[in-house]
């Protein structure tokens, strides 16, 4: 087939520059984002700071030494010697009043009061889990020193495996939360701002295709998502050893589906709002329940059974669960199919309604 030649232009002396509207729109999207230092901080730096903080706070520690107090007396010296044999106990010999004070302040977990050569009294708060453990440790040491005999021989192997620590749990959650936040915020604010400034109306007055305008947001979100997800997941992987056990393709697909679903929600929120204030209120209404209920920081299964269907249907829950299944348990497409279906449903419903409601002027 021969393409029909445009009349009047064969061999035109001025080689005209070709412009692609989708490319130019997307370029302006990126430029606006990169020239907004706050946006760059909240998108890239903040999740890493948060992951670092949580990683440090919840790092796995080797068995901790517990502080206890022994009330000073002739028997006390002997009890302390017996307890000192246990390397997990840090024993202080103090007066009765100092011991009680330390217990109240929580600086010791338990106080041992020697009553006679053959009996001791334990003072501790039964509500403190570490106090109960300490009581077991202390009692074992004292009984052993008193001549108790263990009839069964034991051997111990200690296990601390990547994949079961808190940081492993929280990094996929942070990834998902970041996809939601940047998806909804970046699209929502940019559109409402353009509407408020009558820029949207100005663009509608050009031959610009409306689909190109919306598509430019999608392209921007995919581009930024790739950067966000790589930065956060490689930080988790290389700094904290968070595993990436599942197929990478499934991981990328989950991130893409999440990006689309949250992008559609951002579009829906921005479809009619005329002021940034109205939009940001709506964004909080949409995002707050998900921050709380979707299991970013603790398991969503802690919520009562009655609300579980709602919790499970939230898009953030779907992304969090799918990322955890993929990263920690190695799930492929089959393992995350129901989560992908939930995200696809959100995408279709939110996008369809958004297009119907969208106010261009």
């Amino acid at each position, binding site marked *: 087939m021969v393409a029909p030649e445009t009349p009047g232009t064969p061999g035109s002396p001025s080689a*005209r*520059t070709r*412009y*692609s*509207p989708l*490319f*130019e*729109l997307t*370029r*302006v999207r990126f*430029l*606006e984002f990169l*020239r*907004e230092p706050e946006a760059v901080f909240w998108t890239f730096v903040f999740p890493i700071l948060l992951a670092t903080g949580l990683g440090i706070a919840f790092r796995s520690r080797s068995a901790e030494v517990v502080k206890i107090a022994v009330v000073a007396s002739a028997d006390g010296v002997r009890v302390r010697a017996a307890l000192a044999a246990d390397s997990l106990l840090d024993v202080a010999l103090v007066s009765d009043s100092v011991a009680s004070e330390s217990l109240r302040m929580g600086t010791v977990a338990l106080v041992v009061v020697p009553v006679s050569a053959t009996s001791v009294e334990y003072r501790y708060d039964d509500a403190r889990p570490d106090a109960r453990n300490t009581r077991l440790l202390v009692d074992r040491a004292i009984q052993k020193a008193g001549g108790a005999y263990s009839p069964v021989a034991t051997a111990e192997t200690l296990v601390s495996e990547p994949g079961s620590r808190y940081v492993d749990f929280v990094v996929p959650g942070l990834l998902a939360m970041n996809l939601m936040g940047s998806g909804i915020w970046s699209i929502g604010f940019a559109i409402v701002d*353009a509407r408020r*400034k*009558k*820029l949207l*109306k*100005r*663009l*509608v*007055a*050009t*031959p*610009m295709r409306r689909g190109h305008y919306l598509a430019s947001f999608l392209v921007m979100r995919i581009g930024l998502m790739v950067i966000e997800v790589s930065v956060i997941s490689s930080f988790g992987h290389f700094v904290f050893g968070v595993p990436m056990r599942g197929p990478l393709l499934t991981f990328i697909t989950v991130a893409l589906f999440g990006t689309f679903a949250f992008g559609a929600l951002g579009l829906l929120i921005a479809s009619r709002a005329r002021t940034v204030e109205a939009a940001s209120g709506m964004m909080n209404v949409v995002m707050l329940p998900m921050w709380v209920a979707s299991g970013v920081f603790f398991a969503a299964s802690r919520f009562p059974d009655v609300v579980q269907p709602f919790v499970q249907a939230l898009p953030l829950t779907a992304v969090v669960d799918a990322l955890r299944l993929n990263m920690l348990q190695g799930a492929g497409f089959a393992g995350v199919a129901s989560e992908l279906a939930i995200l696809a449903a959100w995408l279709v419903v939110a996008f369809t309604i958004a297009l119907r409601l969208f106010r261009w*002027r």
Partner: protein
Amino acid sequence: MTATMSALSVRNLVKRYGTVTAVDGLDLTVGAGECFGLLGPNGAGKTTTIEICEGLLTPDSGEVLVLGLDWKRDERALRQRLGVQLQETQLAEKVTVEETVRLFRSFYANGREVNEVINLVQLEEKRRARVGTLSGGQKQRLSVACALVGDPDLVFLDEPTTGLDPQSRRQLWDLVERLKKLGRTIVLTTHYMDEAERLCDRVAIVDHGRIIALGSPRELIRSLGAEQVVECALESADGITVDDLQALPGVLEALLVAASWTLQVNAAHETIPALLALVNARGAKLTELSTHSPTLEDVFVSLTGRHLREGG
């Protein structure tokens, strides 16, 4: 096919917002190559009219043909041939002048080169400056550049100089005059009579959604029949009536507008002494007296009994 191809033709246009009728049966025709002005006070319906012509609002009734095309049938083709500058559009602040023009250029199948348009609006030195750093006048010229980048057959400018300082206004006027020399059809709205007088080949004076006068600025002014306009403000002049002033020699029309008198006269040298004598005889006090050649403002005053600008 229309027999005579006008750039813009509007018939019996009506647009209501609730109980308010913004445009009330308006007709106008703009010829190709003409610079046409819609002049009127704020709220007269100028912006509503121009936005209907731009295809941004739908009229309640009436017919609009732009370049012989209809918005309902030919929107895509029309958009390619129009340049639009809106009141109150704020372009993205973090983007540079060149990037902005380039973006708008990308929407048009054919048009001018980016640099050419930037030169046309004299923003060469600001090419790499972000929009947020531009002055009001520069922003407005950039906004016009975005309207010109598709090399339009018809350009709509809505209040292009509102809010600008005098120097920026003159720069914008120069720009519109360059466009006129290039043979573009321009439709602009304004509430500055000096702007309409200077730029427009023909002016439609709009009030309450209707055209109350139409013609070239010169014709409109001539229609007053007055050689001069005398304006005066009087104190303790309870006894002086319209009829008294009307009866003065050389007075064609006397009007009380916003607490001062406007006299359209054809012989100021006869009117003024007579006016002073009248003021003296009645024991009133003259606090202001001025004369000027008639302007479009006087045409508006004569037609409506009000000034174009509130409090003006």
